[in-house]
C-alpha cells in the first residue's frame, strides 16, 4: 500500500499533481473498523450540535452560566489539550537543540501531533466564541489589547502553528516529491524550532497566567501567583506522557510503516522518557509543595476540596513519579506506559481543577458539562485522529524518508 504511494510520489515532478492529490484523497484500508463505527456517528452528531450552537446561541447546547462563563470547551479542549501538545517543543528541544539524535525517529510524528492538536483545540475555541466573526480583531484590525494575557496567547497560538507547520513541512514536500521546496524548508527547521520553543514557553505558562486575575474565584489550594510556572513545568511531562501513550498505539496501528531499526529503538526511547518525566515531575512536585507551604493553607486540607487536592498531588503526581523512577530502574516498558496514563489523568485533573472544578467552587450552583458539550469535544478529538491517520498513511511521518530526501543534505 505504501509502496504505491512512493511510486506516484517519485515520478511526480510537478505534473499531474491534481490527479495525484485526488488519488490521495481516497480512503486507504478498511472502512468498517471499530474505530470508524464509533467515531463516525459521534462526528455527525457533533456537526449537528455545532449547527444548533451557531443558530440558537452557545447556551442552547452548553451548561454555561453567568457565574461560570468558561466550561469544558476551554478547560479541557484548550487548556488541557495544549498541555498535552507540549511534547512537540520538548522533543524538538532534545533533538535539535541538545542534538540528541536518538529521538530523531519520533520528531515528525510528535510535531504532527502537536500541530494538529493546536489546529483542532485552538480551532475548537471558535465554537466557544460568541462573536467569532470578530476573531481577526486582535490579529489585524487595529484592536490590539496588548495588556491582555489572552492577546499574547492568541498570537502565540497562531505563530506557533506556523512554526510547527514549517517544522513538519519537509514531510509534505517529500510526499509531493517537491525536491527544491524540500531543501528550502529543511533549512528553515532550526529557526522554526528555536522560535517554537520560545513561543511554547510563553504560551504554556500564559494559559495559566490567564487565570491570575481570577484571584478570589479559584480555590486557594490551586490559586497562586505561580500558576504560570506550574503550567509550564507540568506541560513538559504532560507532553512526554502523551508521546509515550500515542507512541505505543501508533506502534501497533501503523506497525507496517515503521522500520525494524526504529521499532527496536522505541524501547530505549520510552525508557529514557520515563527518566525525563520522573525528574521534571519531581521538580513540579517540589514546586507545588513550596507553594503550598508558603500559601499557609494547612486548615483547608481537612475539607472536601483539601482531600481532592491531596488526591491530585499524591495519587496523580507523586505516585506516577515514583512509578516512572521505578520502571526506569527495572527497565520495564509496560510500567512506563501505566505511569504515563496516570500522569495524563493527573494533568486532566489539574487543569480542570484550576479552570472548572476549583473555579467558583463556592458558588451555589456548580457547572457540569452537558452531554452535548462532551459530544462536541469528542467529535473534535475524533476528527483530529482521522486527519492524523490520513496524513500518516500518506506522508513519510513514521516510515523512512525517500532516498532523494536523505541524499539532499
Amino acid at each position, binding site marked *: 500500500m505504501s509502496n504505491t504511494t512512493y511510486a506516484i510520489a517519485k515520478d511526480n515532478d510537478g505534473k499531474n499533481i491534481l490527479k495525484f492529490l485526488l488519488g490521495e484523497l481516497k480512503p486507504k484500508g478498511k472502512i468498517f473498523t471499530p474505530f470508524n463505527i464509533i467515531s463516525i456517528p459521534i462526528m455527525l452528531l457533533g456537526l449537528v450540535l455545532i449547527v444548533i450552537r*451557531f*443558530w*440558537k*446561541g*452557545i*447556551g442552547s447546547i*452548553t451548561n454555561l*452560566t*453567568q*457565574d461560570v*462563563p*468558561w466550561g469544558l470547551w476551554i478547560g479541557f479542549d484548550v487548556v488541557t489539550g495544549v498541555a498535552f501538545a507540549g511534547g512537540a517543543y520538548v522533543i524538538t528541544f532534545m533533538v*535539535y*537543540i*541538545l*542534538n*540528541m*539524535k536518538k529521538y*530523531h525517529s519520533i520528531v515528525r510524528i510528535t510535531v504532527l501531533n502537536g500541530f494538529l492538536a493546536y489546529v483542532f483545540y485552538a480551532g475548537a475555541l471558535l465554537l*466557544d*466564541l*460568541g*462573536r*467569532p466573526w*470578530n*476573531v481577526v*480583531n*486582535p490579529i489585524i484590525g487595529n*484592536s*490590539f*489589547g*496588548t*495588556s*491582555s*494575557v*489572552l*492577546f*499574547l496567547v492568541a498570537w502565540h497560538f497562531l505563530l506557533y502553528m506556523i512554526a510547527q507547520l514549517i517544522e513538519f513541512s*519537509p514531510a509534505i514536500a517529500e510526499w509531493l516529491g517537491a525536491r527544491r521546496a524540500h531543501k528550502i524548508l*529543511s533549512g528553515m*527547521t*532550526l529557526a522554526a524550532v*528555536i*522560535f517554537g*520553543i*520560545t513561543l511554547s*514557553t*510563553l504560551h504554556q*505558562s500564559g494559559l495559566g*497566567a*490567564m*487565570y*491570575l*486575575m*481570577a*484571584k*478570589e474565584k479559584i480555590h486557594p489550594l490551586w490559586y497562586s*501567583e505561580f500558576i504560570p510556572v506550574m503550567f509550564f513545568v507540568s506541560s513538559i511531562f504532560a507532553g512526554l506522557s502523551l508521546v509515550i501513550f500515542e507512541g505505543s498505539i501508533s506502534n501497533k496501528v501503523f506497525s507496517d510503516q515503521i522500520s525494524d531499526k526504529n521499532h527496536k529503538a522505541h524501547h530505549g526511547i520510552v525508557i529514557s522518557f520515563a527518566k525525563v518525566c520522573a525528574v521534571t515531575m519531581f521538580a513540579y512536585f517540589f514546586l507545588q509543595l513550596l507553594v503550598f507551604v508558603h500559601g499557609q493553607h494547612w486548615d483547608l486540607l481537612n475539607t472536601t476540596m483539601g482531600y481532592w487536592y491531596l488526591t491530585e498531588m499524591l495519587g496523580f503526581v507523586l505516585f506516577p513519579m515514583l512509578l516512572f523512577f521505578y520502571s526506569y530502574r527495572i527497565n520495564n516498558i509496560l510500567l512506563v506506559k501505566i505511569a504515563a496514563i496516570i500522569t495524563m489523568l493527573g494533568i486532566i485533573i489539574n487543569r480542570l481543577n484550576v479552570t472548572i472544578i476549583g473555579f467558583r467552587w463556592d458558588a451555589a450552583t456548580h457547572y457540569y458539562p452537558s452531554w452535548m458539550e462532551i459530544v462536541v469535544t469528542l467529535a473534535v478529538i475524533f476528527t483530529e485522529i482521522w486527519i492524523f491517520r490520513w496524513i500518516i498513511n500518506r506522508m513519510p511521518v513514521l516510515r523512512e*524518508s525517500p532516498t532523494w530526501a536523505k541524499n539532499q*543534505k
Partner: protein
Amino acid sequence: MSINRRSFFKFLSLTGITLAVGKESVAQSDKGQEVDFLSILYDSTHCVGCQSCEFACAEAHGLPEPVGAPEAGKIRKLDETNRSVINCYNTSKGEIYVKQQCMHCNEPACSSACLTNAMHKTKEGPVIWRGNKCMGCRYCMVSCPFDIPKFEFHSANPKIQKCNMCFDRLEERKIPACVENCPAEALVFGTRRELIKEARKRIVENPDTYVDQIYGEDEAGGTGILYLSSVPFNELGFRTNLQKTSYPELSKGFLYSVPTIFVLWPALLLGIHEATKNNHVKEDENE
C-alpha cells in the same frame, strides 16, 4: 568601582524599561490618580428601594422592564436583561436597600483582560463595551472581581451587557439615567475626587449614621462607584475579601517577563545548539 556599579544598574534599568515599553505596554493610560474620573456616589441610607433607577436604566438601554421587587432574604441577580438591580438585606440595623451595577474600576480587570480592546476604560471614567470589537470570548467575565459583565448565552449574535454609566447620555451632556430619576437623592453624580470629599464630609458630620468606610475608595484599586452604608459592608452582600490594589497588577509580572524571554530564549537555545552540535557527528545525519 562604584561608578561602574552604578552605571551597570543604570544600564540594567534602562534595558528593562525599553523592553517593557517596547513590546507589551501594559501600563496604559489607566492611572486613576492623575485624572479625575466621572463617578457616582450611592448613599444606601437614603435609598428607599423604589426601583426608579432600575426602570430608568431599562428604558435608557432598551432592555425589558425589570421583574420582581427587592425583598429581604431574596437576592435578585444581575443578568443579561438588567444592568442595574436593587436588593434588600436584613441587617443589624433593619432592612437596607443596595443598588448593584458595574463598579467602573479605575484600573478595570475586564478591560485589561480584553484582547480586542472591546471593554474600554474611557478617559472620562466609564467602562464601556464596544460590540464591533468584541469576539465574545468572555475573558472579561472570568476576570471581573465583581462578576459584572453578563453574556447573552441564548443569542446567535450575543452581546455583553453591563452598565456603561450611560456613556451615550454623558456625551450629550446629560447625567446617567439612574441618577436623574432617583427621587430619594441616594445617587449623586460628579467627579471622583469631589464625591470622595462629599462622602467623607457625610461620615464626619454623621458619625452615628455611617460606618467609617467608603466602599470603592480602595477596593480593587479604587472604583468609579462609591458606596456609603450604615452597617458593615459584608452585611450588604459586598465582597469584602477583594484586594486593595488593582487586578491588572496581578498579571503584570507575567507580561513584563515576556519581552525578556523573547530576547533571552532564542540566544540561549542557539548557544546550546552550537555547543552540542558536534557531539554526535558519527550518527546518521538525515534532517
